């Protein structure tokens, strides 16, 4: 036991503390993702509406800017309200890291989309595939950090759509994007919301008890 207790100057107590800290951080990170399940749903609805509007609606050039603007505004307001309601102490450093991961992704994808739109590259066959790869990578990275298979599956669906978009016609690529949006944004978002509701009700029961 002596070796284990003092291996490399790290005591058993230190190791136990680290394990406990890591476990609590992973749990907090997952909870943080669950709290924001509605954002997945909101973005999923935005993508689907924008694709449908740009395909069959009037003034198709307005579809993406309008849908994106409404979603960004709605998500920002909703998030601000949620943060205010939860109070400043409710978010751990790990939750902030998760927020940072998604923020980084948001900056990256916004820059890419803005540059692609300004330089008329949105029509490239690569564009849909790139979006799918970005979304898949951020989901799988988050899943890998929090060891969460369901989010990993959502990411894998995005990657599959990204690969499929390169091998099929642009129309079929659009369908792959819509299917991935439905499964990885809307279905996964509802799954997160259901888990969050269950967690909140368990917390309430515990508090009453």
């Amino acid at each position: 036991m002596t070796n284990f207790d003092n291996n490399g100057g790290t005591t058993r107590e230190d190791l136990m503390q680290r394990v406990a800290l890591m476990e609590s951080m992973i749990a907090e990170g997952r909870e943080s993702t669950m709290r924001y399940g509605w954002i997945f749903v909101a973005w999923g609805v935005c993508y689907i509406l924008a694709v449908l509007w740009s395909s069959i609606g009037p003034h198709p050039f307005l579809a993406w800017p309008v849908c994106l603007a409404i979603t960004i505004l709605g998500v920002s307001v909703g998030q601000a309200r949620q943060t205010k309601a939860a109070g400043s102490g409710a978010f751990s450093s790990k939750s902030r890291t998760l927020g940072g991961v998604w923020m980084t992704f948001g900056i990256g994808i916004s820059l890419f989309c803005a540059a692609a739109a300004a330089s008329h590259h949105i029509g490239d066959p690569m564009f849909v595939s790139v979006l799918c790869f970005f979304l898949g990578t951020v989901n799988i990275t988050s899943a890998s950090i929090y060891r969460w298979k369901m989010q990993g599956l959502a990411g894998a669906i995005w990657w599959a759509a990204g690969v499929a978009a390169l091998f099929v016609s642009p129309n079929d690529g659009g369908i792959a994007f819509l299917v991935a949006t439905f499964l990885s944004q809307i279905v996964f978002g509802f799954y997160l919301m259901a888990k969050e509701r269950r967690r909140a009700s368990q917390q309430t029961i515990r508090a009453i008890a």
Partner: protein
Amino acid sequence: MSDFDTDNGTTRDDLVQRIALMEAMIAEGRQYTGRNSWIFVVWGVVDLIAISWQYYFRHFGGRWAWPICLFVGVILTFGGKMLQRRGQGYSKNDECARVMSVWGMMGLALGIYVASGILTHFDWQYSYMAAILMMIGMAHAISAMILHWRMQGLAAAIYWAGGVAILAFNSGKATTAIWLFEMGIVMIVFGLYATRVEPNHSRATGVRA
């Protein structure tokens, strides 16, 4: 002070210990990146060789330049990692695991994306090249945020700027020059910086590896 000392059952000592532990973990995470920074150098050299082969020795199987160089890069990375793992003192904490997750998933995403692009002959498109830089920038940005590392944040910004510039300039020559700068110079310089600066930083701050 007494309120602070026992806020939510957490003593001041607990908090100080927790902060110290997290700071040590962040420092270890940076060192972990430093230990693995040879991978940046390897990929920088691999990219430089591939670009030179493709443009200056195109009659010597130029179309195979990227597939062969990428394959060699993957073999060198895996071989080097295996040798490193066999060495003494290889350990990783939660921060290291998160950084590893980010880069591992980004590597996997890039592998699938690049392979799909080459197989479907879309690898000439500017949006394809720009997306690779944006994805590498995202990995750097997430890692920089986890490790609170400004230099890596700067590397991320340079990659993102490169991605945007490729789409903005919209020309083959500019794309080659930007690609050469980002994948060759920035990759190698950051790799060498991380290798050399981090041990000095650790010695200066007295953080134990």
